């Protein structure tokens, strides 16, 4: 099949020369074709996986409410977490980025008198509800229930851990929370952002 005459500077043409030439030709096809395709594919994949290498911003300290506004030993209350957020190219000045349950468990105004849970279920991230009559939290998706203290209540709960508590701070009479989301569906409580 090889049609080109062998170059002059090759001293002798052995039996296997045409085979070798053809092999080299085929190898060159694969190498050159591969190289040509690799560039757009490479550029595409680099861009595609770029979110993997984004650095996590860490927790965000957000003001929730005045301490006075919370009744001592009251029931958990749902609060929206409002903060500045960068979404791709957009900088939102102040926007709702999630929600938390806040409960003033003690009478005082110390950090330990407040309990704040991230409102997303540690199972798969559905929004948990607080059922006032039962006095516990319940996830509408897969029926996990959590005590008002956050532990898993029902033995057949699919949630691997209790509700995720968040660190709070008291600043000049206001309650602040370090808002974080955690990796779902594992036993450990690992922050994701």
């Amino acid at each position: 099949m090889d049609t080109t005459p062998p170059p002059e500077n090759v001293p002798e043409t052995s039996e296997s020369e045409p085979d070798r030439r053809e092999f080299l030709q085929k190898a060159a096809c694969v190498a050159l074709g591969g190289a040509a395709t690799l560039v757009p594919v490479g550029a595409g994949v680099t861009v595609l996986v770029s979110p993997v290498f984004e650095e996590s911003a860490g927790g965000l300290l957000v003001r929730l409410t005045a301490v006075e506004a919370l009744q001592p030993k009251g029931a958990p209350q749902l609060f929206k977490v409002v903060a500045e957020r960068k979404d791709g190219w957009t900088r939102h000045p102040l926007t709702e980025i999630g929600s938390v349950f806040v409960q003033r468990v003690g009478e005082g105004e110390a950090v330990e008198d407040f309990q704040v849970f991230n409102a997303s279920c540690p199972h798969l991230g559905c929004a948990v509800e607080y059922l006032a009559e039962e006095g516990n939290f319940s996830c509408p998706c897969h029926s996990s229930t959590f005590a008002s203290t956050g532990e898993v209540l029902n033995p057949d709960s699919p949630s691997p851990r209790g509700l995720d508590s968040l660190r709070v701070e008291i600043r000049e009479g206001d309650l602040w929370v370090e808002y974080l989301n955690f990796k779902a569906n594992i036993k450990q409580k690992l922050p994701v952002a």
Partner: protein
Amino acid sequence: MKALLGWLDQRTGYRSLVKEALFESVPGGARWRYVWGSTLTFAIVMQFITGIILWMFYSPSSQTAWESVYYIQEEVPGGWLLRGIHHWTAQVMTVLLLLHLLQVVIDGAYRAPRELNFWFGMGLLGITLAMSLTGYLLPWDQKGYWATKVATNLTGGVPFIGDYLQRVVVGGVDYGHHTLTRFFALHAGVLPFLLIALIAAHVYLFRRHGITVKMPKKGPDAYFWPDQVLKDAVACLAVLATVLVFVFWQHGAHLSAPANPAEQFSAARPDWYFMFLFQLLKYFPGDQEILGIAAPIWGSVIVPGALFAAFMALPFVGALKWRVPVFKCRLGDFCSVVFLILCIIGFIFLTSVAFYHDRYDPEHAPHFLAAVEQAERDAARVKTLVAENDGIPPEGALALLRNDPHTQGPRLFKANCASCHTYGGENGMGELVEDPTAADLKGFASREWLTEFLSPEHIATAKYWGNTKFVNPDEGERVSKMVNFVLDDVSEFGDVEKRLLEELIIGLSAEAKLPAQAEADAEAADIVAQLPELLGEDGLACTDCHHFQGEGRRPDLTGYGSREWTIDFIKDPSHKRFYGDRNDRMPSYGPMGEKPAKLSDRDIELIVDWLRAVPLPTPSGH
């Protein structure tokens, strides 16, 4: 492995498919002139790969299209490379298509029995151009917006259905979200689908008829694999290399300022391969008729349509079998090649004229180049603003430009102030002003400005009050006391008074609180603190006439040149705090009793903030 492939082959028969694909006969052996089809396939594969990834970042709406493209270009790691490859491959593809067409006609591959495949090829050319046209709008920048607006307005000229067609294409009567969603669906959905279908048909027919061998054969017959494939691969690599040269040269692809319907972009041009059509339109004046049809319809619809029809008719022309004596070829081939050469000459001619006109025509080029430069300035500016803001506000990048003194100040100055005032001898937008009748405001209230203003050599020149009635009063009025003071008194100042004047200028200029002078003002705090004395009886007695911190008359020098002072002045220079009834021709720009304001508060703020800011460096020319 072999067993696995055997299993697969039994179930799919892929081996015969591969064999058929690779072992196509190439009579006369592999040749470079056969590579164009393969390079086009390669280019299309590149466009699909890069296009699909770009799709994952692109957001088609008037508040997010430019913004998401900006994000790809400037912030996503490697995004510029991806976008650059997509953009430049599209450009190179157009060239490859033309080369392919050239080769097909010269080699006679368009004749029977390959007419249908030639038409498919012309269809593919059309689809590719449609892809380019729709893609040009997607970044929603000034360039794409205004150029595409022209193109869609042309569809409105199509006889009978034009208006409806235009509305369908634009997604309404005006450009907006729906234009983008439609263009995007065409660009990434409808057209690629048609492209694939037509390519499949094109390749099928090509394989059915086999390669059109260019005579004489150069060697013995060979198979497609590996001889021709190797040549194809080398050609594809060369295509890629060409694309990459442009990508790295331009760092991706150009993105001009975000589309602004209120900001005419007079340098809007289609991509280079449409420039010949753009130029063609100029030869059909709007007020003339040809055969009862308006001339513009001829230029935009009939002539290009006839040209396309002529191309479609080539297979029939090519069938003419008589021989042309001198050239010793078939008449059909002769006509086709001559037609093609004429088309190429026409294409090159019209394109060159269009480019030449924009860049070198003494009447037109300055406007075009100024518009390009202005767009470049805006594009660079919006990038700076996005960086300063660490992101784009939800209402879009245009909001950043609309609220930016550096962008709006010069425009507002040109529109409202430059009929009397100048800014560094210009109108704010880089154009010289011939006969200003009021002061040059570049550096207003700065030490340099005041030093010149208060010097006998300068106050009566055109740069300051030379053309105002303070120097040249109307009949029955007197020359302004201020002018007399500078011309008569200052010119006779001794050393002590000269030093007092220097210190007074430093102190008075500090009243303006100019950002650029903040450091110098702080250093001269001792002198600045002396300002009341310098203005008063113990100094140069300015308060004999002027008002300062509760003493004297007008114009008020308290906070002279500050933001608040300048805004109030522009709102009403005839106010008793300022010139009162001695005001020359300066109008009041704020609301005057019943009369609404000439300029909104925000516009006045933008002008003042720009006047008080340090000028941005002008970008180096392109």
